[in-house]
């Protein structure tokens, strides 16, 4: 038996390094009848905001070569409804639940977090400062070091729980932003959020997502994720949770070798509901074949 236990910083221990990615798994309750949620090391919820958000008009998604573009616009039920409706199921999962928060203003992030602090079952937070398809908030908090510095500091002061900042690849140097998170005592960074992408229907000449530019995800962006993780792993000491284009166990190993301590599964949830089971099986086999007893031994072990 391979030990898949994964420690992310001091505050978060997972039974395995595979989490769900925000916005691709609902609030974690959507598939309870179809797949065994307990397989996941943890569930990351859809981004929550202080008030419910309707999100963007149609069309919100389009398929691209080996990927998709989305422009959901952070549609969500709001933090109150989340606590009211989802606590029951989520608090009983053996895996950890990470709540992803977003907001239009710093205050909104703070107020959302304060409400969540009342819920003991929440293992930690992922702060989305990198959503590419909302007018206000979204990536504007995550692209400028000064702004990021301020908001992370403020949120850090409000909670002792695990706090992870989700970064965007749509910047000149993601390391600078990861360093800010480290300096402000974030427990981890997660990366990457979606990449700016657009597609146009040549028959109608209309953009295929309502905001023209949306977020590209799926297998197509995997090399971009690996590059960002590798770079950041050499620049900061806090752990990295890797996201972007993972579709199988080999991809997860690649992310760990590049420097991720754990991973999140996003778009793959749409096209392969068995992904988590297949990935865990592959991890076991790979570790056995490579003579490794503890999966964390792989982290950052690319040979350069």
């Amino acid at each position: 038996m391979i030990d898949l236990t994964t420690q992310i910083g001091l505050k978060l221990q997972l039974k395995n390094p595979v989490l769900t990615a925000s916005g691709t798994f609902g609030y974690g309750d959507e598939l309870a009848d179809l797949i065994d949620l307990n397989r996941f090391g943890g569930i990351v919820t859809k981004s929550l905001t202080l008030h419910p958000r309707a999100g963007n008009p149609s069309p919100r998604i389009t398929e691209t070569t080996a990927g998709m573009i989305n422009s959901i616009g952070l549609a969500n039920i709001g933090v109150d409804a989340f606590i009211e409706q989802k606590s029951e199921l989520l608090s009983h999962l053996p895996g950890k639940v990470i709540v992803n928060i977003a907001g239009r203003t710093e205050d909104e992030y703070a107020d959302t977090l304060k409400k969540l602090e009342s819920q003991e079952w929440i293992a930690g937070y992922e702060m989305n400062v990198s959503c590419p398809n909302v007018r206000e908030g979204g990536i504007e908090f995550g692209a400028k070091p000064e702004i990021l510095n301020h908001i992370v500091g403020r949120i850090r002061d409000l909670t002792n729980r695990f706090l992870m900042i989700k970064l965007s690849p749509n910047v000149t140097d993601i390391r600078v932003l990861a360093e800010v998170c480290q300096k402000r005592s974030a427990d981890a960074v997660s990366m990457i959020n979606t990449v700016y992408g657009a597609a146009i229907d040549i028959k109608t000449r209309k953009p295929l997502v309502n905001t023209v530019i949306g977020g590209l995800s799926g297998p197509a962006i995997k090399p971009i994720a690996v590059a960002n993780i590798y770079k950041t792993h050499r620049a900061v000491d806090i752990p990295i949770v890797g996201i972007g284009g993972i579709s199988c166990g080999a991809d997860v190993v690649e992310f760990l070798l590049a420097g991720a301590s754990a991973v999140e599964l996003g778009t793959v949830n749409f096209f392969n509901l068995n992904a988590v089971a297949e990935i865990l099986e592959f991890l076991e086999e790979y570790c056995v074949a490579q003579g490794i007893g503890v999966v964390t031994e792989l982290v950052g072990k690319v040979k350069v």
Partner: protein
Amino acid sequence: MRHLTETIILENNAVAKNIFRMTLKCPEISRSAQPGQFVNIYFSDQIHIFPRPFSIAGATDEILNLIYRVVGVQTSQMAGWKIGQTVKILGPLGNQFTVDASVDNHVLIGGGVGVAPLIFLADKILQGGIEPQFFLGVKNRDEMPDGKFFRQLQDFHASSDDGSIGFHGTVVDNFLSHLPGIKKSVAIYACGPEKMNAALAQLAGERRYDCQISFERLMACGLGLCQGCTVKKNSTDAEAGYLLVCKDGPVFHSDRVMFND
């Protein structure tokens, strides 16, 4: 109860120009399937990553029928699938048509391949001892599915845009032309192109018919995970919000949603 399973193809034949019927052996899904619900078909294809949704066109004991039109990459692939091959499918998904037996006239209105869920619905209504009225509009004779699908229907009315089969005109016009003969209460069940749906919704609004429409949207997941398949709620409130076709639908009462949002 939803199931993700590997099913076996029992039949896969053309039933009209570019329109195929696929028969699958899949008791897990067929036994609980209801008219209006759909299934996801999964492909082992990393280029086009979304599963493709198809309405259930019939479910009898172990067997599930789909009727699909070849429109792009995956449906072209499907048309080449052979008997005995396995297919990965998930279902039944989504909500269903609801039939209020106290209504006098049950009118099923289909445009093109929108006929699929209505064939299943007609079966169910017939089984309940009620004779539905069925209007089907197609572009032309070539696109009219094999007559055997409608054989049990006493009250079947075809139309075509070019007049090459049945009534010459849209399916809505055909329905309108029959309206004078239709007495008492009417429930409409429809599935077809956006334009047809919008026209029916308006008609139903004016005449206060109960009208249920099955929607299509591009879907990434079919499961309520991605929030991609929205239809706007009908409301004067600009912030009204959206419903998900895959989860709240695909069937909506026409007065609850907006058309051409």
